[in-house]
Each structure stands twice: as C-alpha cells, then as structure tokens.
C-alpha cells in the first residue's frame, strides 16, 4: 500500500507545514503603532555572563529620579521672616508647601512677606535672584560661556524681551540680527509679522552699527512681507517661491504677460539664472509651449539660425524641461541648441526622442546605426516610417 502511506504522508503532519499563502505577521492590536520585539533571541546571552553583579549594581544605582529636598517646616520660616532673621525660600519647591507658605503669610497679615513669597522667581542661574541686575550682567559678560547658556535658556523658554534687554545690556550688537529672526519665527500671520519686524527695526536699528549687507537683508525681508500683504498673496515663504506663484497666477489669465514678472525680478534683485529656471518650470508645468518658445528662442533674421536666449547651459535647460515630460516635438526643438552633438545625441537617446536620433543618423549617413535603432521602434509609427523611408531612399550616399 505504498500509495496510501504516501497519501498519509501528505495528509498528516506532526508539525505545521508550510502555508503557501502569504503568511503576514500578525501585529499586536495596539492603539496605533506596530511595536515589535527584537528579532534574534539566539544571539543574546544572559545578563550575568557579560557583566558582573557588582558592576550591574553600580549601573543600576545610577538610575535616579529627581530628588526631593528635605525642607524645614513652613511656620519656622514665616517666623524667621517676621522677626527679620535670615531665611531661605528656595528649598520650598513643592506646590502644596508653597500654598501653605502663602496662606501662612496671609495669616501673619504682613504685606512685605506676601510679596516676597509671591514673587519668588526660581532661575537657572542662582545669581540672578540674589544680585542686582547690572552686577549680574556685568559678571555674565565677563564669562562668555555663562552668557551663552543664559541666552540659550531665554531662547528656549521664549523670553524674547528679556533676551533683547540682555543683548543690549551686554553690548552684543551682532546678535541683534538673530533677535530679528527669533521674533518673526513663531508668528504665522504675515501682516502681524511684518509690523512686528518693522517695529523692531525702528527701535533698534538706528542705534546699531549693522553693516550694509545685514541691513539690506532685513529690509528685503520686510519688503517681501509688505509686497505679499498688499496683494493678499501670503502663502509663499520665500522670494523665489513667491515668484513661481506669481508667474502661475499671471499666466493662468494672461499667458503672454511678462512685464509684471520682470518688475518683480528687478524689485527683489533676482539673478537671471534663477529667474529663467523658475519661469521655464512654471511654463512647462502649465504646458505653455508657445510662450516658452517666445521667451527662450531668439530669432535671427540675418542668418536664419535661431539661438537659445538664456544664461543657462542648454543641457541644463533641456534636463529641466524634460522632467515635466513634454511632447517629444517640443523637447527636440531645444535639443538642437546643444552645441556638442555627442552630448545632444546621448540626451536624445536617454529621453527617447526618436526623430532627433533618426535625423542625426541620417545626417551622419550612418546606415548601420539606423538599422539597429529601428529595432527599438514600434512598427507603424511615424518614426518607423521615417527610418524606412530614409533607408529605402535611392539617392542617399551611406557611409556603411
């Protein structure tokens, strides 16, 4: 009964067989995340084989929660304050103790004590609360690192006014520009940001000896915000982004309009390369091929040879254009302006601009290349016929 035992083999199994369906891992049903355990357990050895118990204790001892101070009872300190003796409020960090402190002070009916308690500012640098402000500043300005920590603390906790005062007091003029950016950082409404920044400039700039370029930068920033708020186009976050948005808007209704955009370019001193690239991009994304032609091709009536009118390297231009996947005819027009014919051929091959390649091989009288290229073309297409026609034409003198 060999056949039966074979069937048995297939029908029974001591272990679960392979599941030919895709076995996706079941993920734990956690609220949102897929949280797995580390994959390999075979590589992991028990903890005491890699570290001794003493050393492990040392490591664990290091786990600390934030420690509580032990503080003296509240009545004692109130009594001390009342009697004009020395005291320390700093040890009172727990909230309930502070409340108790306040209540006890109120009970004592002494206005002075209440003020001290409610004004107790805990600061990172203990010095600040125990020294006069100008002495504190003086000491800090002598210690650059300490000043840095302090200004970082003010930045992190967003105490910008104090930071301004601090910079002014320490004569830190270079950092004023930093403040300019910090102030604008969190304000999302462009109008508010502009007014805040203008206010800042008015208050601080005359006093500062910021150099010419810095001032230029600040003014440009405000200028852009101003331009945006007037025209109610506040989404863009940079000059070039605004240019792109502006181009798009203009060309949606008036595709041939160029003057307002040139105006923007002049106003913000945008360089030619950036301007032309952006314009090309927007036009290509909107498929404004005639306008693209008008902007970038300069006709030459004398020699009948048009040229590409751009500061961009023609290859860069073609690359930029090709990303938008334009019609092959459009692309081929611009391919012609690449002076190095090898490079233009390479590009054409990469971009599948068949007609360009075919024309190239015809011009080179390279029959073999044409024949091998024909393989790549699909039959019954325009390009295919072009090749056929050229190959069959009797008056062509082929090289090979």
């Amino acid at each position: 009964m060999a056949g039966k035992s074979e069937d048995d083999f297939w029908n029974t199994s001591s272990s679960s067989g392979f599941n030919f369906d895709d076995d996706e891992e079941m993920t734990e049903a956690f609220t949102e995340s897929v949280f797995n355990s580390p994959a390999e357990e075979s590589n992991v050895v028990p903890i005491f084989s890699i570290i001794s118990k003493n050393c492990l204790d040392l490591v664990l001892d290091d786990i600390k929660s934030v420690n509580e101070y032990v503080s003296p009872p509240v009545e004692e300190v109130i009594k001390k304050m009342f009697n004009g003796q020395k005291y320390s409020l700093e040890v009172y960090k727990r909230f309930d103790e502070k409340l108790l402190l306040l209540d006890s002070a109120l009970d004592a009916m002494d206005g002075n004590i209440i003020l001290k308690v409610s004004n107790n500012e805990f600061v990172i640098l203990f010095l600040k609360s125990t020294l006069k402000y100008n002495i504190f500043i003086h000491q800090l300005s002598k210690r650059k690192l300490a000043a840095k920590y302090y200004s970082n603390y003010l930045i992190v906790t967003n105490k910008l006014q104090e930071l301004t005062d601090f910079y002014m007091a320490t004569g830190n003029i270079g950092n004023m520009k930093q403040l300019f950016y910090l102030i604008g950082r969190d304000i999302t409404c462009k109008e508010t940001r502009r007014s805040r920044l203008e206010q800042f400039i008015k208050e601080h700039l005359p006093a500062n000896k910021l150099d010419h370029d810095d001032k230029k930068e600040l003014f440009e920033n405000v200028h852009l915000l101003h331009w945006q708020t007037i025209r109610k186009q506040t989404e863009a976050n940079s000059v070039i982004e605004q240019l792109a948005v502006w181009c798009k808007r203009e060309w949606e209704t008036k595709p041939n309009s160029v003057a307002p955009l040139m105006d923007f370019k002049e106003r913000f001193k945008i360089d030619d390369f950036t301007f032309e690239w952006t314009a090309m991009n927007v036009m290509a994304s909107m498929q404004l091929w005639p306008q693209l032609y008008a902007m970038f091709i300069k006709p030459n009536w004398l020699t009948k040879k048009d040229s590409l009118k751009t500061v961009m390297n023609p290859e860069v231009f073609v690359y930029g254009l090709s990303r938008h996947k334009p019609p092959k005819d459009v692309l081929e027009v611009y391919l012609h302006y690449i002076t190095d014919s090898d490079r233009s051929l390479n590009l054409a091959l990469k971009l599948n601009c068949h007609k360009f390649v075919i024309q190239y091989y015809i011009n080179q009288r390279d029959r073999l290349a044409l024949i091998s290229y024909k393989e790549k073309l699909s039959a019954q297409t325009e390009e295919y016929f072009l090749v056929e026609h050229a190959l069959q034409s009797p008056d062509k003198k082929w090289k090979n």
Partner: protein
Amino acid sequence: MDLMKKLSSLQEISKAQLSKILCINPNRKHLILEPRLIRPLERVCGVQWLKSFGVDKIFKLEATTPNFATNAVFYMIYSEIKTFKRVIDQIRSQVDIENPTKNKFHVIVVPRAICIFEEELEQLGLLYTVINLHSFQWMPVHLDVGVLSLELPDVFGSLYIHQNATNLPTLSKILWQLCFVVGKSKFILALGQYSVAILQQYEQLCDDRGETDKIDCDFGAVIVIDRNVDYTSALLTPGTYSALLNEVYTCRAGICENKEEITETLDEKCNPVTSKRVVSFSLDSVQDSVYADIKNRYFTEVTSVLSHLTKQLKSETVSSKEMALDEIKHYVQTKLQATKTRKKFITNHLLAAESIINILGHRYENQKHVEMNIMKDTDKTGSLSFLDELLVTENNEYVTLRLFCLLAITQKLSESEVKNFWHKYLQQFGFEKGFGFFNLVKAGIITEPVQGSGTLNLQNKIKLPKFTSSDFYVNTKNLKQVPADPDKVNLKYPTCASYVYGGAYIPLITQVAGMILNSIPVEDIRSKLEPLGALSVRNDKGYPLQTRSVLIYVVGGVTYAEIAACNLLETLTGARICILSDQVVTGNDLSGKK
C-alpha cells in the same frame, strides 16, 4: 566570549535599568511614547518584555489624551522642551493639583531630565506631587555587526552649534558603563574639545564611582573623536550602498522605511517631484544575507549584483518546476522558506536601489566631479557656479547648504562669496533661514564677518588653539587622506578606503585607526593629529596593541561611508573595529541642524 554576542546582549542591562524605573509603581500601567522613540525602544526591549512588567497598553503621544482609568501612566520622551510641555498639558488636563493622586504620572526623559523641566514643573505646581521625573539612557544599540548607536537625536546640534554641554555627561557615562562589559582599554586617544572633556569625565567617573572588575579588555584601543574634526567625511556625497540608502531614506535605529509615496507631482516652485518607493526593512547583515553582501559595495556594483541574484532566483524557480515529486518534498521542507525570504530581501533592495537612482542619479556624476575637484583643490570657480546651479535646480536646502559647507571648510570662501551665496540662499528658501548664518559661524564652518567699521581685522574671531592649522589641505596631506590619483582607485575590489567616496578622500577615523593598528609610534601620531584639535592620549603600557581590536567613538554622529571604510580596514589589517556613536547620520542631517 564572542564580542558580538556581548554587544548584542547589552540590552539586558538596559532592561534592568528600565525595570527599576517601571517598578516604582508596581500596579498596572500604560506607556505613552513619543513617536521617534518607538523604533529604538523596539531594539532595546520590545513589546513582550514591557507587558511582563505590567504595561497594559502602549500609546503614541498625540493631541488627544487617552483614557487612563486607574492605571499608572508612564510617558517617555526625548529631552526637548516642546515635547515636555505637550506632555505636561496633557497631564494637567487630567489632574487637580490641589488633590493629586500619588505615584500615578511619571515622565521618563531620554537621556536626561534637565533642570529647565524641573523649573517648569515647579512653576506649575506639579513637581513631586503630581509628576515624577526620571532619566533613562539605554545602552548602545547593536544595529549591525560592530555598529553601536545611542539613537540620541540632537547631540550634534546641541554640542557643535549651540555649544550646550548638557548631553556630555550622558556620553561619558555610556563609555563608563560600556567598560563594565568590555573592560577598560589600556590605550585611549581623544581628539577634539568635547572628546577630551568626555575622557576627563570618564576618568572622574572611574575614580568616584568605581571601575570594571574585568581584567582583560576586548578592545586594544579606544579612539574618541569629535565630529567637527572631520566634517568632510559627512559632507561628501558617499558612494556605498548603505550610505546612499541613508541619504535617500533617512534610516533610524537601523531601519530603512518609507511608509507612503508622495502624491504631489510638483513642489512649491513648480519643479517635478520624484517620489521614493515604499519600503520597510532592517539594515541587518546577520538576518539579511543580501544586505550583508551589498552594504559596503560601491553603488555601481550593487545594481549588477542584484540583477545577478535575481537571475539566480529565477533559475531556481524554473528548475523547481521541473522537479520530481520527492525532490519537491525535499525542496519544500528545506529550501522554500529560505527562497521566499531571499526573494523578499532582493525585492526590497531592488526597490531601494531604484529610488536611489531616481532621486540622486541625475546629479551624481556632476556632483562627484565637483567634489573630486574640491578635494584636489582645483577649479574653485567651476565649483562655485555648480553650487549656484544646484541651489536653483535641486531646490533642496540641505543638499545645497552641504556643498556650501564643504567649499567653505576646504577651499575657503571670501566674505563676498559667502554673502553672495547666502543672499541667493535666503531668496530661494525664505528669510526665516537667515538664522542659519549664525549657526554656521558657531559650528566653525565660516568665520564671523567683520563688523563694517573699516578696521582691518584679518584674524578670525574664532580663537584657534596653538599649533592648530585650519588649512584643510595641509592637514589632509599630512595624514595622506587624499589619494594622488583618484581615478585609479579600484571601486569593484577596493584596496583603498577612499573608494567610499569614489576615490576622493579617506575618512579621518580610518586613518587614525590605521595608524594605531600599524603601530606607528605615539609621538608621530601626536604630531600628525595635534594640528586638528585638542588631543589627549592615555597609554597604560597598552601600545603597541596586544589585542588587535579598536573601538571608535564618534561624538556627534557617524556616517555609513565611514563605517564601510573601517570595515575595509578590518579586512586589510585582520583587526576588528567597532564603531560607537550617538546616531548614524548623513550630511543632510548635519546641514539640517544649521
């Protein structure tokens, strides 16, 4: 015991540390994690282990607060004030500060709860009574063979840009704790201001708190080095597969993933957008044999290896169709699962390679050419015009800034060149980025511009320590980091570590490790390295090395290219090199911080 086994088992210690914190409240608990912590925590302890400590549910930190019922609640976050404030707000909405439940809310801060947090809690009346603060830093995660990462996100920014040393004690403590497992090395070299400080703190810890009781050390030498001593390795565009993966996908905790493809076709300036393919896999050469093969290969080789493997797989499938019945039985029992897994690996890598080609392909050749010129100190004008072109055509603030930084630290840019570039940069990406200028100065990339009072202030405002030279080319020549003929470097079967950058440059850590492994006299090493920054050497009769293994600790992030270069050095010298850092980064991560 095998060193790799030890490194893979380090997490047992982390678990012991974490359990001590979690056991403060023995009741059932909920755990709420900041999203960035999920991947590292998976490598540290995993879900099952957490559940065994009474964790009922794990949530992501989000806008809405889940219902906690009577469970204790443990939040775990990185030490950033913004996240902390969100957590506090969530907790406050649930408590009455005058009548709080004891021991219910806990916040675990990775790596350390800073005093600003205490202050915030104190001012809001929450300290000790409502919220308990804990600090926790796991042991280094063994991401891949010999690659250890702390998965700390902002060490570079805080140390090198904000010059805030709050994280420094954590970094030195990790070294101290690691020595309990691997023993104390007899030869330690520290290069760079923060590395020297870490070494000092580490020795302080050994004196005050105790040392390892292991007699031998797994590492013959330990090298601690600052990121800013060799920015170039991070700024150059790498050529190896793992490094390029990180460039395109930003891998964290050794995992490469992209959850969804972007649907927009145009960016904000009407440039077409290339999307990355959706992938999710682990960069683990033990599990993934295909990755182990291709991770350090130069990318042009990778595509041919992958197609070869695909063909192999196809032929296997074909032959399996012609098998006899008992052959099929055998195949199903033994090879099918392995083939399926292999197929999955190959698919992942093919998708990833496709993304790399789509996103980097068009500019790779040109960029490599420019970077090669920079390394050879030629054609600065060409490089500058390429930079301008890149700024506009690539429309990527990190990539552009990165090339700018490279130019600034190597060929040095004049003030007007810097100002020119910066003006265009702000126009392109927005004036809000203006802040970055100061960060660049702080990081030492550009010099502080002279205030326009007309005085001839030719010295840089940054004070250089004595004997250091900021001349990149002098230093690299001394250390032989730039091959004389980059085109001759063999990329397929490399023998020179510069292959990771296409033959342009050898990473500094590889050269230092090489010198030590080749037993170059300590005095010679000293004289070569001193121009680069503060240098400190501890030699306790440990040189020349008795154990031919080195631990390199890069403070501020290490790149996969550097790891690949060190792997090649391992093969060439027969030594073992392990690399530890706070995170595996790319140049984009660094320029993003600026």
